[in-house]
């Protein structure tokens, strides 16, 4: 599978790539059995590139990010296989002290919950300052000034005053700015933003996304944006990786994925985004729920919810319910994990792509 994706994303030279995740598998051994939260994920981010990891809640996005940062508690977690190449090193085999230097210094992360992600008993300045002191070896005074500057950079008004405040004195949006300031204070090569706007009001969401995008452009850091909302990726990233049940089901550039979704799951996600053109119409939501991790369907993991799944009686032909498709390369960096894209089923693919009811919803 690695090879499939490698060719799918062919054309990128190795030193263009800042992050190269290969066949990542992270399992959790819990009381009821094993949750395969991430089960064979491959993707690459180019230097200063912007990639979004998209999928419904529970599909393994956060676990992917935490595995890259090696912040999975083991046990109950287990990084069962994979490589995370970052700047020529495999992070999964890096000694612990070197990994600490990467965390916060070269890869920084922003989390979903600004209300709880900051320490309530330390001032904002202390929390930004401790990162720069550690990674840039600054003294207290310089760290304080760096913290003020970092707050100014993310558009916090009156940074000299804010830097001495405690998190509870700030609004949610302001706290997320603080998180961003903290993440960027050490000039990381990669910024991982895990649902950075999900917990915020809609108007604040826009501002924070704008800020992340603006800073990404200004500093040239690479961006891994994690979101369950395809609506926010359009203006923020270049490439999209769609995940379902711990696997990648579709990859492509943002325009391609949004305008021409290949996988039925992506199509379903798109049709559930509210938009101006669809106002008043009922949003179609993907029917059913994500599969129980302890009772994964044997074939395509999306088959139980897929409106396009079919049964077959032809001998030797794979069925959606019984056989899991590979992530099939479609050329031009696109890939889809669906039997529709198997050469044997071009007829069905033509029906799928004809602008019928399903496709209209996607428009």
């Amino acid at each position, binding site marked *: 599978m690695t090879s499939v994706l490698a060719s799918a994303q062919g054309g990128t030279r190795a030193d263009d790539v800042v992050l190269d995740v290969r066949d990542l598998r992270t399992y959790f051994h819990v009381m009821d059995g094993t949750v395969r939260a991430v089960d064979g994920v491959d993707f690459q981010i180019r230097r200063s590139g912007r990639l979004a990891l998209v999928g419904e809640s529970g599909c393994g996005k956060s676990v992917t990010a935490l595995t890259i*940062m090696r*912040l999975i508690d083991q046990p109950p977690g287990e990084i069962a296989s994979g490589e995370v190449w970052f700047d020529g090193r495999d992070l999964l085999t890096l000694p612990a002290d070197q990994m*600490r*230097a*990467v*965390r*916060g*210094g070269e890869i*920084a*992360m922003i*989390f979903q*919950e600004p209300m*709880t*992600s*900051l*320490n*309530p*008993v*330390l*001032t904002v300045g202390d929390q930004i300052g*401790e*990162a720069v002191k*550690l*990674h840039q070896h600054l003294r207290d005074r310089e760290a304080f000034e760096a913290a003020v500057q970092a707050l100014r950079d993310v558009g916090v008004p009156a940074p000299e005053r804010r830097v001495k405040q*405690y998190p*509870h004195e700030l609004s949610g949006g302001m706290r997320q700015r603080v*998180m961003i300031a*903290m993440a960027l204070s050490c000039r990381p090569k990669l910024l991982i933003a895990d649902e950075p706007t999900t917990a915020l009001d809609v108007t604040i969401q826009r501002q924070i996304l704008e800020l992340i995008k603006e800073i990404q452009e200004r500093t040239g850091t690479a961006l891994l944006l994690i979101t369950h909302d395809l609506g926010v990726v359009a203006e923020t990233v270049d490439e999209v990786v769609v995940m379902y049940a711990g696997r990648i089901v579709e990859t492509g550039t943002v325009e391609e994925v949004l305008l021409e979704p290949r996988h039925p799951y992506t199509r379903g996600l798109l049709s559930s985004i509210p938009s101006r053109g669809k106002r008043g119409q009922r949003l179609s939501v993907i029917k059913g729920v994500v599969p129980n991790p302890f009772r994964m369907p044997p074939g395509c993991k999306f088959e139980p919810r897929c409106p396009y799944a079919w049964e077959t009686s032809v001998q030797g032909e794979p069925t959606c319910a019984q056989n899991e498709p590979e992530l099939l390369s479609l050329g031009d960096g696109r890939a889809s994990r669906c039997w529709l894209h198997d050469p044997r089923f071009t007829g069905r693919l033509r029906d799928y792509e004809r602008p019928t009811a399903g496709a209209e919803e996607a428009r």
Partner: protein
Amino acid sequence: MLKFIVRRLIMLAPILLGLSLVMAFFLHLLPGTPCANILGERATAAQLQKCEHNLGYDRPPIVQWADYVVNAVQLDFGTSFSGARLPVLDAFLQRFPATIELTLAAMLFAVGVGIPLGIAAAKRRQSLLDGAATVVSLIGISIPIFFLGLILVYVFGVWLHWLPAGGRFDLREFDFKGAGTNFLLWESLVIDRDPAKFLDVVGHLILPGITLGTIPLAFVMRITRSAVIEVLNEDYVRTARAKGLSARRIDSRHVLRNALLPVVTVIGLQSGLLLGGAVLTETVYSWGGVGTWLFTAAVDKDYAVIQSGTLLLASVFVLVNLAVDVSYAFLNPRIRYA
């Protein structure tokens, strides 16, 4: 903050007034008066009546209470009937330092062992250590103090001769006549500057401190453990790890500072309770603290001591709680008293 402290101190007045009123009626409801004890068993009814009249016990309780309050405001808390017949305040000031030192020793033991043990248990949950800590804390809470005290005295005092079996210092070697504060740790170290004397006092504090500190130790351990477990799961700890901080730094800066907040409350509450006197521990170790003093007074119906001793200890309890609230506010920026 200052306003908060002042307000709390002012609130002390109605608390003490109410408490003294309750005490006055409570004492009135008890059968008999101190006169029976003062005059002895063979006193006649006429003698008793005369005594009660002279001491004012035949007045209505509300009048007795008012009288008591008027005197107490002038720091006259009455005089004990038994023993040296000291004014209650003097007796209290003589005994309370012993209780303070015992409380300090007990809390030092409880905090010094309980917090590290709680942290270790939290960080290695379900481990042998965690299990052992849980069992020990359960035993600590359920073992009778008297029994524990006697075992410690027997093993370390009588049998091994490692530590003194009772008293506050070695009467044969030292005396404390100088300052008369009755704070022996302070006097031996700062006033007399006698290390041997100081160590003797410390040695006498060890067994009673352990005896009295066992229950607070169990509480402190369990609260620390659960608080650390809770904080370790907080998002901000994940943020700290994502910053690349070392485990030790994360523990000291991010985990402990938050986890200790509930522990401080427990420490304050337990200290307040211990300062109220420890009858059993004081009895086992012949420790002249306020516990046995009040207990004896209750048995002897020594009204002045019961009433005033209770009020003085209630004031101490309120002040300790105030100190806890103030230190809590310093540790927790989310709390700002106005």
